[in-house]
């Protein structure tokens, strides 16, 4: 029978199944970071349990780490959390890319970069954006700390088999439209809980045409659509990306692995529980105006009116969001001034993202009322960008060039947007207070954020790009 990739990977990982119970699922890769793991290690110690397969774990420090003056962490509680991860990894024998390690970076950036992320794997991490790794055709999902402890101890999880959903993006993207715009448009169209209880497979011509880095951006925000995970069937693009990376099989073993990976792709005629479709040519550069990722519109549009919504609860949600965001119904998106720009996060801090942003700003200056920072997703990304001279372009334009980490995406470190100020951000969440108490976040692509930095307000990046071609 024809199977989709989700069913194939799931079935391959069942350790034990019994009617009336969730499946006991084997986990191939467990990624860890400093914020959601300390209580799990403490739980192991209290119960005198071991880490079953430290060789299938990989840890790094990203959420809390400063992006400048790394040697002196001012916040003693943050410092303790970072030190605790070091101690735990030492004690339990888990490989760690700590702050001084050349492989350090945002956990979802370094997994693929190092080739730890591979098609067909089950991958978990105590972080909801674990869905990023699905870009390679892996089932990858975020878990809580109790589940982190469970995986450390048993290398398995009890999981009810999720439903499957195909999100098909037909046709080709227009000029200046990016992977970020695809995923924001999908969430705006189908809602923030469209994927609850499902794993999404993204399909269609527009997806096939994306690079691996772009595919990661799409899968990264599957969780913002409420999905358990999001993935894309592997193809030659996937194989070409992985070849030669640190942790993938080498030489003949790679060819063998690649053949297995390609065979995981969804079979012709396979079914899904749910199928939705969006036309690539109806998507334009996107900006969010509200307080969750579904509250966004194309740049040529405006903040909606309450009258645009049918249900009372949606009207109420719009009003609450606009009060928080300090916006008026009907305001054109290009009329909104900003004070901050953040180019970073596991969604959009890979080399191609920095290249896209740098192209827009080259030879221009950041608007005088804007503070703009670039936070590369990993030390490797930072180094590669510097080799290409991107840092010089950003610095000349007036951007700050920082060390890698999660940074202003969730503002656990010192990178915080002040209350009442507005940030054009390439991250993934615009929830109230996400980038700082009272801060106002607008999500968009790196090119759009870069264009906003120059203009001091939201602009249609296509107008700037047209002059560059």
């Amino acid at each position, binding site marked *: 029978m024809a199977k989709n990739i989700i069913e194939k990977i799931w079935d391959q990982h069942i*350790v*034990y199944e019994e009617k*009336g*119970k*969730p499946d*006991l699922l*084997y986990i191939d890769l467990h990624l860890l970071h400093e*914020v*959601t793991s300390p*209580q799990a290690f*403490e739980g192991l110690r209290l*119960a005198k349990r071991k880490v*079953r397969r430290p060789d299938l774990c990989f840890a790094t420090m990203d*959420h*809390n780490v400063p992006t400048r003056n790394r040697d002196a962490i001012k*916040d003693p*509680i*943050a410092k*303790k*959390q970072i030190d*605790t991860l070091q101690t735990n990894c030492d004690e339990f024998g888990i490989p760690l890319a700590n702050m001084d390690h050349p492989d350090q970076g945002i956990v979802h950036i370094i997994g693929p970069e190092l080739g730890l992320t591979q098609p067909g794997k089950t991958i978990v991490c*105590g*972080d*909801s954006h674990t869905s990023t790794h699905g870009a390679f055709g892996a089932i990858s*999902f*975020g*878990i*809580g*700390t*109790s*589940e982190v*402890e*469970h995986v450390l*101890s*048993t*290398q*398995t999880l*009890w999981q*009810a088999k*999720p439903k499957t959903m195909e999100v098909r993006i037909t046709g080709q993207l227009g000029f200046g439209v990016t992977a970020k715009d695809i995923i924001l448009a999908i969430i705006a169209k189908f809602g*923030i*809980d469209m994927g*609850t*209880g499902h794993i999404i497979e993204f399909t269609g011509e527009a997806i096939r045409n994306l690079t691996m880095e772009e595919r990661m951006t799409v899968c990264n925000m599957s*969780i913002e659509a*409420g999905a358990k995970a999001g993935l894309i069937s592997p193809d030659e693009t996937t194989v070409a990306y992985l070849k030669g990376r640190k942790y993938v099989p080498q030489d003949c073993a790679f060819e063998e692995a690649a053949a297995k990976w390609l065979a995981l792709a969804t079979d012709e005629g396979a079914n899904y529980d749910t199928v939705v479709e969006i036309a690539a040519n109806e998507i334009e550069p996107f900006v969010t105006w509200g307080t*969750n990722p579904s509250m966004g519109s194309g740049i040529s549009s405006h903040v909606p009116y309450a009258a645009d919504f049918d249900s009372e*609860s949606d009207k109420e*949600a719009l009003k*609450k969001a606009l009060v928080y965001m300090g916006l008026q119904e009907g305001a054109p998106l290009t009329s909104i001034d900003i004070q901050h720009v953040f180019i970073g996060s596991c969604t959009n801090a890979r080399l191609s993202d920095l290249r896209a942003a740098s192209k827009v700003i080259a030879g221009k200056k950041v608007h005088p009322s804007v503070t703009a920072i670039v936070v590369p997703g990993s030390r490797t990304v930072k180094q590669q960008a510097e080799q290409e001279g991107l840092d010089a372009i950003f610095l000349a334009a007036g951007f700050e060039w920082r060390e890698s980490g999660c940074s202003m995406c*969730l*503002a*656990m470190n010192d990178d915080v947007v002040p*209350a009442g100020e507005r940030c054009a951000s390439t991250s993934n*969440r615009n*929830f*109230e*207070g996400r980038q700082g*108490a*009272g801060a106002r976040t607008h999500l968009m692509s790196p090119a759009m954020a870069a264009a906003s930095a120059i203009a001091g307000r939201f602009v249609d990046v296509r107008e700037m790009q047209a002059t560059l071609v």
Partner: protein
Amino acid sequence: MEPINKVVSVITPLDRKNVDTDQIISKEFLKRIERTGFGQYLFYHWRVDADGNEVKDFVLNDERFKDSKILVAHENFGCGSSREHAPWSILDYGFNVVIAPSFADIFYNNCMKNGLLPIKLNVSEVEELLANGLQHASAVEVNLEEQTVIGLDGKRYSFTIDPYYKEMLLNGWDEIALTIQYEAHIASYEELQRA
């Protein structure tokens, strides 16, 4: 975790949908390395304004709901971040039950590992509970064994829950201890992978 079966309490009506885990517990409070002590930070930026004063019209600051053990909210409760600090803070604050028409997947799972009972009722039932709760500070009895929520006015709602999770919650079981009993299956799976 503590076993849970019956909970009788006035409900706290949180009249919002898509309540995300960033609101439940804000990131500045995630730096502790313990599982305890998060209750004081629950919904912090909705409870306390920028000057440190209580937000008078926020439901958790309403005296009538002070001793409530049951939180009720609209659809998609617990969306966003996987932080387990969210159920930890809800439990530590004093709630044992959250009722909503739907929950985000990771949050729902996290509740199950901590003895916090998430109950799904349909939209109209939740709206009824919220309306009653806001008007009269009404109380209900939650019974996990029977899978019911019964208003003190006699109104009865029933809910479904996966039998595996129900058993876990009723008994307060340690899931890892249960899984370790499947060690032979795990070992033979690993053996097959190596072959």
